[in-house]
């Protein structure tokens, strides 16, 4: 009960706060600001409480990879929709990130002077939507929260943004909505082909499937299975966990849909497009630089720090576990998109003159690592199957999301500080800030180096994990992705040189360059601390992620060995037979002809022994 209340409050406390704010007088700007800050704190406190190991009921169980803190109530029974929330090692770190970044960005919102009340109301609704996306385990609920964020975000950019705010806001809205609509189509297709009757009692229990019996009582596990077995029609579900079980253990999503592709192939593609628009990956990234440049500083922090992570979260939570077959087949596409984003983002960042636009493109580049890490199935290439390195890739991607959340929010805040003072962002009109604002410059350099991926700071771990994991998948991609680090260093160091170093400042408003204020310091310090702590003790964060990611990757690796590899081998054998059929008539001695053709890579495909994820983690921590 307490658990239900706490999880629900993470989402709906901000909503209540927003409703309460509507009755505040608009004149008392500071009252409104402090009230909003208080609400964001009230969301942060339970999150920290859950993260700490002191409460038997509420603390996050570090030993468990399964979903925990589950809240599950029937909501719209006629559509099998549940109010279904929960946390695991994938969502909880992102919930923490959201809670922290929201508090800090609210602190940064003090510089907002126009329509403070409306701003705070929209800000809180945005917070509710973000929390909802990470906590929802019902696809319908997930979709609602996903779209709830759009409208507040549109106004936050469109009203409080820069000169081209309306263009940027509608562009953001349209891109995301197109992605959302594609997702909706995929969700509906998955829903109507799902059938929970095909799950075993254990799988039903894992997925927290509830069945209402004839008497109206709720059944789970074995009883639910018995009740479901009596049903004559398919029982559909929006339950993400049940869909994952269906995707990995049954063939309900394997039916052909259109153009010879299976339903799960289409679902994967549609969902993936929806998610990479949010990530954003090249070529669907063009909304991001505009949105970032026009958005006010705190909204940029939220956008880079939290919103982009939703794309990565969707891919790891929905795309791969529900449609593993399509994920396997499309591994090359996914990885290529990741690498292209990294390279393109880095080159684009190098070419920018606008400070904020440069940071925005660096986000495109850094989020490419996330897509790459998630896509490394390590099976499609060279007939090798190595789940250990895939495990590493996923962990790297998750860590990269967290690290980027801290460093990019920090970088945008640093840009915002200097913009507030001199009201321009032209990289060529800076210089010499070190002399005028030494404390600020030190902090900024730390955060920019964290973004660069300097060892010992938060950006490093994720990048190294991802790049290492790619080696087994494809040497070419690994070399390219590793060399992106050089480009990253180039644009960040060049920017640092142009802005902070140099003899003197050569832009307008030189007199306004005053040292960082206490409020700004109070926002920067936590970011710096996080950047250093995550870089030096990555295990602090891996503790939360490891069990869940290990579990998910083990399940998918097991699926690959059980379902995909035999299927591929059968396919090859069929192709082989075909070749023989074609070749036979041409050969003078047919028997010898067959014998000449070597058995194609039956050995090469044999699964490499899965050594368990523990080894990788240990080595990762030693890095």
């Amino acid at each position, binding site marked *: 009960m307490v658990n239900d209340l706490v999880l629900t409050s993470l989402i709906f406390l901000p909503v209540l706060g927003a409703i309460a704010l509507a009755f505040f007088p608009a004149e008392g700007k500071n009252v409104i600001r402090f009230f909003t800050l208080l609400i964001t704190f009230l969301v942060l406190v339970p999150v920290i409480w859950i993260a700490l190991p002191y409460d038997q009921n509420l603390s996050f169980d570090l030993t468990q990879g399964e979903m925990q803190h589950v809240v599950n109530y029937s*909501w*719209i*029974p*006629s*559509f099998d929709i549940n109010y279904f929330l929960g946390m695991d090692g994938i969502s909880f770190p992102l919930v923490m990130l959201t809670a922290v970044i929201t508090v800090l960005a609210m602190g940064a919102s003090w510089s907002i002077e126009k329509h403070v009340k409306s701003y705070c109301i929209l800000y809180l609704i945005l917070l509710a939507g973000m929390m909802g996306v990470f906590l929802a385990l019902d696809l319908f609920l997930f*979709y*609602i929260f996903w*779209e*709830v964020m*759009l*409208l507040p975000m*549109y*106004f936050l950019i*469109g*009203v409080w943004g820069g000169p081209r705010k*309306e263009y940027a806001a*509608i562009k953001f*809205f*349209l891109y995301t*909505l*197109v992605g959302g*609509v*594609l997702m*909706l*189509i995929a969700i*509906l*297709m998955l*829903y*109507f*082909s799902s059938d929970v009757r095909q799950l075993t009692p254990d799988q039903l229990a894992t997925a927290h499937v509830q069945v209402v019996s004839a008497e109206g009582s709720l059944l789970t596990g074995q009883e639910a299975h018995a009740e479901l077995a009596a049903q004559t029609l398919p029982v559909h579900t929006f339950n993400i966990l049940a869909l994952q079980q269906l995707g990995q253990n049954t063939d309900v999503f394997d039916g052909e*849909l*259109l153009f010879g592709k299976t339903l799960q192939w289409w679902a994967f593609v549609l969902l993936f497009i929806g998610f990479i628009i949010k990530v954003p990956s090249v070529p669907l990234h063009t909304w991001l630089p505009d949105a970032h440049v026009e958005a006010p500083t705190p909204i940029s922090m939220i956008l880079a720090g939290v919103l982009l992570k939703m794309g990565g979260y969707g891919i790891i939570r929905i795309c791969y576990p529900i449609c593993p077959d399509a994920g396997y087949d499309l591994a090359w596409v996914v990885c290529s998109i990741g690498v292209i984003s990294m390279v393109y983002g880095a080159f684009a960042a190098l070419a920018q003159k606008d400070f904020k636009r440069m940071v925005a493109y660096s986000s495109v580049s850094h989020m490419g690592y996330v897509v790459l890490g998630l896509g490394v199935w390590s099976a499609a290439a060279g007939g090798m199957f190595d789940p250990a390195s895939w495990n590493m890739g996923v962990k790297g991607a998750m860590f990269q999301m967290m690290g980027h959340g801290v460093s990019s929010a920090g970088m945008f805040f640093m840009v915002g500080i200097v913009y507030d003072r001199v009201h321009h962002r032209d990289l060529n009109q800076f210089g010499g800030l070190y002399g005028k604002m030494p404390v600020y410059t030190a902090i900024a350099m730390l955060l920019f180096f964290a973004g660069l991926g300097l060892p010992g700071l938060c950006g490093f771990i994720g990048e190294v994990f991802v790049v290492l994991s790619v080696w087994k998948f494809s040497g070419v991609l690994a070399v390219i992705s590793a060399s992106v680090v050089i480009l990253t260093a180039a644009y960040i160091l060049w920017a640092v040189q142009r802005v902070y170093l140099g003899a003197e400042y050569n832009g307008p408003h030189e007199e306004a360059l005053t040292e960082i204020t206490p409020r700004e310091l109070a926002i920067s310090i936590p970011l710096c601390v996080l950047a250093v702590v995550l870089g030096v003790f990555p295990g602090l964060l891996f503790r939360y992620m490891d069990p869940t990611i290990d579990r998910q990757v083990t399940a998918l690796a097991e699926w690959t060995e059980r379902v995909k590899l035999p299927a591929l081998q059968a396919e090859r054998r069929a192709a082989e037979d075909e070749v023989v059929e074609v070749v036979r008539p041409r050969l003078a001695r047919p028997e010898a002809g067959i014998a000449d053709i070597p058995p194609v890579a039956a050995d090469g495909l044999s699964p490499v022994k899965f050594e368990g994820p523990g080894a990788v983690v240990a080595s990762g921590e030693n890095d």
Partner: protein
Amino acid sequence: MFHSIVTHLTDDTLISLYAFSVELVLVVTILTILLLRLCRWTENLDAIYVAIVGTIVALFALMPIFPLDITASPMKLVPIGELPRVEIFTGMLVYDGFSVVIKSILLLFLLLFFTLVKITGVTARADNTDFTTLVLGASLGMCVMASANHMLTVFMGIEMASVPSFVLVAFLRFRRTSSEAALKYALYGAGAAGVMLYGISLITGILNTAHLPTMAARLAEMNLAGMSSTETLVLSLAALMTLAGLAYKLSAVPFHLWAPDVFEGATAEVGAFLSVASKAAALALLVRVAVGFASLDAAATPLAVALESSNAEVAVAAEVEPLQVALLQAEAEAAPADAAPEAAAVTVDSQERTRNFLGIVLALVAAVTCTFGNLAAFTQTNIKRLLAYSTIAHAGYMMMAVPAAVAVSGSHPALAGKFVAYLALYIVVYLFMNLGAFAIVAFVRDATGSEQIQDYAGMLGRNKTVAVCFALILVSLVGLPPLAGFIGKFAVFASLAEGYQATAQTYLMVLLFIGGLNTAISLYYYLRVVKVMLIDSVGDETPPISHPIGMLQSGYMWLLTAPVVLLIVNWEFLHAWLQSAVGTLVS
């Protein structure tokens, strides 16, 4: 013989009257309003109050949750899910859950609509008698449309609903644009009616009957026997002509041309009436005709048969069964008697042709209507014209559920009813959104005297209620969660996805994608209005709010916005009611 026919007819009519109570109440209300004017004491009574009372009485006569089962003897109230589908008035109309649902929606709309007219006072008080009479008369026609089961009632319903609408559009006599709009509307209406009548005469000529289920049965027989190419051609042509009449009522492309001018010329209140009530009735009629032709199972039980099964004493009826009963029974008996599975398979196959034809035509019209409406709305500067195109687009979205229902009606009859219930869900949501939008346009017109989009600039600073409510309603029209518009869209898209999975008809999947893309397209023009209201600031030429918007108006806006915002919290009750009422449409 003659005596028994008369007995049968009187029995049938008397019992049918119970199922016709809503229409009767509306007729009595109209008469009361007209007669009150003759009496000195009641001469000055505002007719709108009478109309509101009449609507409430009609709602009570309908009893949407526990309607009257007229086949039981004695008659009793049953839960709506158990209401049998029966034909009344010797097969002219149907009385079933679907007609109850559509009539409830119409009456709910009338209630809100009369309140709105009372608040805005758009018509002079002395004119209210005429105004309410016309509205109620049109509603009467819409009730007939919703329960039509015979080509005669189909046509009569459309005309009864249309003719008063022509007058309503021209109600402000001294405005030239109104008169022009009414003339266009009437001319188009007359043309469409003529084409439709021609189509109907061709169909009935070939099929030898105008009774929908019998026509469907004949068509199946003809398919079974094999049709000559001439027959196919004439039938297809006739079907297209009949659909043209329906498309005119739905303002579906290419019969939509009247809509923007009429909506611009008519007052916003009449616009609300045309865009909600008229559309709901037209969609119901489309469902009746399309699903009726697509599946023999959609036929309602003739009243006589229903009575006989529930009360064996009514033996007289058996002697003089109407033609269609005999036919249907012969049909029903023929299939098992031949006991030839191949024959049954062929029958299904022959119906498949009808279904494919209807499904593809309707899907095409829906796709084109939706896309055209959305694209044409982009450049509008007048808010009523914008809403007119938005209405066209929404007619397209709503029509999408019909091809899905048609496609599955043969293989999965239960799904067809489910899909029509999804459509009804959309209509309910649409009622609140569109009535709300037109109401706000009317309030703003009264306050500022303008209906141009640019004159909404800076509304947030001038009147918060208008700005916030209108913004929410417009975003809901896009179909963004958590607002109610999403529920309707979700339901209609669900019918397409489920229909595709059940039948593997590619056009349903294509339609789903088109619907999805249209949602994204439509965002732009709705959001433009929102942007003007919330982001833009008041310009020099923006007309000021000269008549302040009062508490009554604000209350009304919130009354309509509240369901739009809050329905997402729990729409189970609504969905469950609709499913139980409409779910058995085909069985």
